[in-house]
């Protein structure tokens, strides 16, 4: 399938001194959900920021490699330009504008639209159709929404922009399991109904691999294993280290029995 986003061997350095990404590559095909998994500090968020151009705000720099969106190099393209070209980054921690109302948050997202898109009232209706709860609260300040509602608002803003690719940074962060499921169901629905490709960054491997068609797992700034979601789910190492299922018999284990580093991860060899 045709690739929408291609990341080729990028290296990212913060503050001209701390190297976070060491030759990371991945690709997101048109209309697919791709999961990027990894533990804290692996560089997942950095990967997304180096695509959306928000890296420079944090004094980070792509020192090598190339990021192509729709086969065009994104280097030097200002962030707002990329958004208008159809690449929407939903940042970690939701980042709703707390002292704006829900509706004003959506209005802010209309800056992502460029001329030739459908009318605005349609896209508000689209958002409220996916998230009826936001409609009830549209006059409220976003800061007073619950965590789940804020995540819905963050997704709603992305919907307003009608992008070709949504990069979702840890939508499950700080949410109750039931809400996580609800959010992921909607993400899958958006992908199916709007044809929007989604690059999903997560720590919750089980839920993400359930909705994604392809997955990458990264550690220390590079991809260590990748494959179709079902293959990854079946992989012994992934099961042990990311899905919390035991090695031999495949039954769930209690934390009491886990011996850490009983076996080296095979990909470290």
């Amino acid at each position, binding site marked *: 399938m045709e690739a929408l986003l291609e990341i080729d061997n990028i290296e990212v350095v913060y503050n001209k001194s701390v190297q976070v990404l060491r030759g990371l590559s991945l690709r997101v095909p048109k209309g697919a959900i791709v999961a990027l998994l990894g533990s804290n500090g692996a560089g997942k968020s950095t990967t997304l920021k180096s695509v959306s151009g*928000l890296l420079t705000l944090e004094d980070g720099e792509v020192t090598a490699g190339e990021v192509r969106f729709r086969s065009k190099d994104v280097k030097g393209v200002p962030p707002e330009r990329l958004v208008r070209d159809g690449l929407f980054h939903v*940042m970690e921690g939701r*980042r709703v*504008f707390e*002292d704006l109302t829900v509706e004003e*948050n959506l209005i802010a997202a209309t800056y992502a639209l460029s001329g030739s898109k459908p009318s605005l009232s349609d896209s508000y209706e689209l958002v409220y159709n996916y998230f009826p709860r936001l409609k009830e609260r549209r006059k409220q300040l976003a800061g*007073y929404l619950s965590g789940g509602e804020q995540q819905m608002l963050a997704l709603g803003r992305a919907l307003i922009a009608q992008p070709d690719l949504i990069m979702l940074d840890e939508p499950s962060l700080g949410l109750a399991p039931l809400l996580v499921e609800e959010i992921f169901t909607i993400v899958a629905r958006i992908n199916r109904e709007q044809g929007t490709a989604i690059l999903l960054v997560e720590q919750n491997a089980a839920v993400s691999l359930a909705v994604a068609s392809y997955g990458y797992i990264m550690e220390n700034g590079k991809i260590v294993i990748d494959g179709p979601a079902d293959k990854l789910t079946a992989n012994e190492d992934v099961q042990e280290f990311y899905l919390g299922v035991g090695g031999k018999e495949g039954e769930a284990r209690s934390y009491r029995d886990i011996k850490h580093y009983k076996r080296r991860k095979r990909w470290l060899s």
Partner: protein
Amino acid sequence: MDWLFFGEISLAGLAMGGLYALIALGFVIIYKATRVINFAIGEIMMFAAYLFLAFAGGMEMSPWIALPLAVIGGSILGGVIEKTIIRPMLGESPISVVMVTIGIASILVGLVEFVWTADPQLLPNFLPREPVFIGELYLAPKIAYGFLIGSALLIVYLLYFRFSRGGVALRATASDQAAAYSMGINVRRVFNMAWVFGSLAASLAGVLVAATGGLSPQFGIIGLSVLVVVIVGGLDSILGALVAGVFIGWLETVAGAYLGGEYRMPATFLVLAIILVIRPYGLFGTHEIERV
């Protein structure tokens, strides 16, 4: 106590305070959007007032044409300062940026002295001269009409920030810069617009204040009073700028009338010190929304 006198002084003070509020608004818009404390705001006012002098006095245009021209000139000055001097300073420490604005202020003073000399000047009068009475109370016409024009712009601004799409972009940028970028908002353009709008408010206030009290290159000192206003009101609060502007204007005038002109500044700075002890972020400064 003579209540009529007190009433008239208060009224004049409140009207003056309206103009302070307008300048403070200019200051707050810039601070809110860009987190730059703009010490040059008083000098931008002064520059616009001199432009008015040049257009209306020197070139003998009608004051009603000269006024918008001078205000536009002041706003352009603000936009140019942002684009050429402040933007390259993005990411530098706030103190450096503050020092740069102070530098800009003295350059503007020097420039004005160079062109118009350091002598005090009088602006051609363009506001109606009939005395204004509110009930029993007399109000100097210049102050009254200045207040009216200033308030009109204030109201336009408030409506714009509350209800327009551009206002949403500005408030979004103020609330979370990185998130604003990720919405496709052109943050650099918002910064520039903030400087233009801020300077516009200050320029209009500059011409109106200079029309009542005369103009000299030291006119920018008024920026100090406005600094008191914005700190009392809370650096990033538009409402704070309005309330504190009116209050400080009233206080200054009343203190000046009853205690003598030399007590104007000490009175306001005393209030500043007290407010800072009680509420370090000002009367209406940002308190983060906490969800419980």
